[in-house]
């Protein structure tokens, strides 16, 4: 086992958590698994779906990030440890953590491909701009061509977050990735500790 492997859990809420790993697990794009059956042949995803009482419903592996979705509302402490163990085991095995992806059927929306393009747009264009106000925008998922994102830093709780989202990010997505059908902001704006623009008037 790689003794230097570091894993940081970043819960989005009690149903969704991102695990950021200190080394890439799958360099060839995004793999999404919506069931244990789909995970067959991908050891990391198989192990996460097999966590006892985990209630795991989705696993997304992209580079050094593993996103796990579960349907039970319990906090992440217990399941998170098991996910961490699965990641360490997969990294230590030396085998590919997930299998390469088959080509999508013609005419279907390829959310994984969209995820990669949206992630690149966020990394290369959106985040350098919002960083000027201490903000960041994190891609959480793409489902049926709908982008799920979370705003952080100065964007979280900012009085102008909706303007950034609807007048800025949405327009950039429409221009660069017109296949995207919508945006869902899952940010808990009430928890923003350092919003750039603080709503202050009655």
């Amino acid at each position, binding site marked *: 086992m790689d003794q230097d492997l570091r894993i940081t859990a970043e819960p989005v809420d009690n149903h969704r958590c991102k695990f950021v790993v200190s080394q890439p697990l799958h360099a060839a794009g995004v793999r999404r698994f919506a069931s244990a059956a789909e995970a067959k042949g991908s050891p990391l995803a198989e192990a996460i779906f097999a966590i006892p009482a985990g209630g795991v419903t989705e696993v997304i592996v992209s580079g050094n990030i593993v996103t796990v979705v579960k349907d039970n509302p319990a906090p992440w402490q217990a399941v998170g440890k098991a996910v961490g163990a699965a990641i360490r085991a997969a990294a230590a095995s030396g085998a590919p953590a997930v299998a390469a992806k088959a080509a999508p059927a013609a005419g279907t929306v390829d959310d994984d491909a969209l995820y990669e393009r949206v992630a690149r747009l966020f990394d290369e264009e959106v985040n350098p701009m919002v960083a000027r106000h201490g903000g960041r925008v994190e891609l959480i998922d793409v489902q049926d061509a709908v982008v799920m994102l979370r705003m952080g830093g100065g964007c979280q709780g900012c009085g102008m977050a909706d*303007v950034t989202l609807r*007048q800025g990010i949405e327009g950039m997505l429409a221009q660069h990735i017109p296949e995207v059908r919508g945006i869902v902001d899952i940010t808990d704006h009430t928890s923003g500790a350092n919003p750039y623009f603080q709503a202050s008037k009655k």
Partner: protein
Amino acid sequence: MPRLLLLLPSTTYRTTAFVEAARRIGADLSVASERPSTLEATNPAGLLTLDFQHPDRAAAEAHAFARQHPIDAVVGVDDDSAVVAAAVAERLGLKGNPPPAAVAARDKHRQRQLLAAAQVPVPGFALHRLDEDPRELAQQVVYPCVLKPLRLSASRGVIRADNPTAFIAAHARLSSIIAGCDTEFLVEEFVPGYEVALEGLLVNRRLHVLALFDKPDPLDGPFFEETIYVTPSQVPAGLQTSIAQCAERAARSLGLVEGPVHAELRYNERGPWLIELAARPIGGRCSAVLRFGDGVSLEELILRHALGMPIPSLAREALAAGVMMIPIPGAGVLQEVRGVAEAKSVPLVEDVQITAHPGERLVPFPEGSRYPGFIFAHGPTPGAVEAALRESHRRLSFVLTP
């Protein structure tokens, strides 16, 4: 699609409600703020910066923008942006209030002068300079009186004084609040009575009353922190008519002709009194409690009116509705709010929104004015709604550190 220019100050609570309303009606939206968005360069038709401190300059900037992106309507959302909207509307020939009327609604002294001249019942008032000797002033005024800033909102800085000692103390507090931003203030007669808030829409000078809210908690001072608004009002029907007529006379006296109006009135044995009238919708997140026709929001009504689009209905829904501006629990740094789930679980309560964030310093009235959150409820009767709001609030606890 028609293009709407929405003037959104960067510190407003109303961004989401107005942006969503614009999307629902299918308008092409241009958002102007007084500070630039970091994404402005990516959407030059949808994001711009205007000088809200100088309405004429903002109007010139909007005029230049409109050459590239023709604008069909302009809407401000608060006291300051309503003045800018009036200047832009005049410059571009759009529907809106005349700029002098918008300025009069914004300036409490000018407003009282015009209303008094038109014989609209307003409290007796006098304008004073901050550098006048408060001890001398304290001997001249009639008690009880209210000291009031000219331009602050949400009752910030408004203090009642019942005697010369209280006046001198109130003067000192007010001076520290408005120091650097104003040199004058109002001293008003305190009008005893029951207070209501009127939400209305002016259409070609005619006031349509959208909602009349009761304020069941007495507002007798020394500070004037709002708490509960409940509608429909339980005020007798004949008196409601007098209240609406008073508000309409006030709007006409100021010269307002189009758009939202929010008015605070009191009534007593002498009839209704106009305390404040603003050419903007209700503040904070309170508008979320209002639904019209099949669920249309207040913001959608305002935008439809500005754009000349059909308005399905100006009639509020049949259910009683109420909102509580959660009282500021004390001075200190907010660490945690407990009991939110329990507060939301109270029957008839639809939502509890905590808008203060962890680490934020809460400042009580009169120096502060930012409520830590809002509770919303709908129900069969105003009494049931009020009881639900109080029970929901009782379940919340705020953890503060000094």
